[in-house]
């Protein structure tokens, strides 16, 4: 039955398929280009979540502070030698 199709009908069918595919993907392309609902979906809305976020951040900072303190100690040891050198 396919082989009985007139060329114009075949071209129209092919064009229709292309348009269909474009229309199907157009909303996705628009949303990816300019996301307006990228999520994540809010599943909790309590003060503890905000406090939790701050605690996690401070825990991560605590590790940085430990490193900084080690560095400061080293620098202090170096500096403590310098006045002796001056004298």
């Amino acid at each position, binding site marked *: 039955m396919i082989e009985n199709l007139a060329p114009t009908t075949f071209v129209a069918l092919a064009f229709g398929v292309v348009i269909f595919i474009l229309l199907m993907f157009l909303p996705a392309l628009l949303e990816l280009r300019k996301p307006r609902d990228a999520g*994540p979906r809010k599943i909790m809305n*309590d003060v503890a979540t905000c406090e939790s*976020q701050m605690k996690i951040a401070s825990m991560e900072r605590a590790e940085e502070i430990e490193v900084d303190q080690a560095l400061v100690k080293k620098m202090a040891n170096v500096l403590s030698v310098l006045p002796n050198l001056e004298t």
Partner: protein
Amino acid sequence: MITVILEALFLILTSLMTGYLIRHYFFTLTVLRNAGKHKKAPALENTAFQPTVSILIPAYNEEPVIGRILQRMSELTYPTDKLQIIVIDDASKDKTGKIADRYSNIHNYVKVLHRDEKEGGRGKASALNAGLKHAKGEIVLCFDADYYPQRDITEQLAKEFEDPKVGAVQGRVTVLNEPKNMLTRLVALERIGGYRIAQQARDDLGLITQFGGTVGGFRRSLLEFLGGWDESILAEDTDLTFQVYLAGYKVRYVNDAECYEEAVESWRGYWKQRYRWSRGHMQCAFKHMLKVLGSKNLRFKEKIDAFFLLNVYFMPVLVLLSWIISIPLFFMKPPQWLGVGWAVLLISAYSFVGNFAPFFEVGIGAYLDGRTRAHWLISLLIFTFLYNIPICTKAFADLVMSKISGENKVRWDKTAHSGDGNSYIMN
């Protein structure tokens, strides 16, 4: 003769896909119909039924995320005298164990099990079994290390066990790092379809609700009776789901018990994760199909749903087979009883994309969640669908080869977590 055989095969395959199509539509319409009944429950604190609960958190090299979940565990509203948190540091090579120890030093209900390289690193099931030996609660819940639950999740899950017929529960998983890239947004859509619609519908209809391996748990007595997690199966969660039903219990889905997860962020990570799921699921199909179909503890509708659920990861393989068959069929002359050649073309076109029913399921799930434009990405799910075809085909081929060679060793390929999700929690 060959044409007749190919057509018969093609029609069988298309009928199977039509079966899944009907199932998807039926699930979606069921949840839509019951939407009014599923309004979000208020936060549960101080409920009467509060059994003792042990929470198992298996962790292998989870340094980027372990602190986040343990911080959250310390904020749960469940009474701490009834709570036990067990972190299984499964021979981690990073600071996972050290971070977990920090929390265990502060909270006396947090315990850390450190497994060395000899006993650990053999996969999630092995880690969970190790944790189970130390669990004292009447209920055992599991969370993956990259998860971030709501504060009253323990109450929401534990309350279901007041019904003595409930053997296991499953909460809802929501993707935390959804905005990260296109893949994470697509995985979020898959989760919406899988939990908000499919799991909810199965629960509403009294079908086979699946325990997903995390954000859920079991009655400890039942879990110990069943022998814990099967370490030879990659989908140990699916295996236990069917064991629970075969033992005469049921699994409840609790949509209000929600938890964030970090979705895979790369296509390679997606491959590894889905390969593990599909191969594990196929192992479960071989292990449980006959038992399920012959079980006196399952009703007819549960057996039908179990059949669809156990075979779901074979479908991409069958879709590939239907494409391969449809090409020669397209060029061969069909027998008279099929009628119009257009029917063959349309059936081929339909089977090319599987079917659109899953897209409808995801779209309705997003609508019920109040999402405004997340569903605009639905058409891109065709890429994850197409990607699943080689994944599931390889999993099937590897499984068949392992059955022929008799080698049953499976390797647990862990999903790597970046810990980037923290920035999204404050959304």
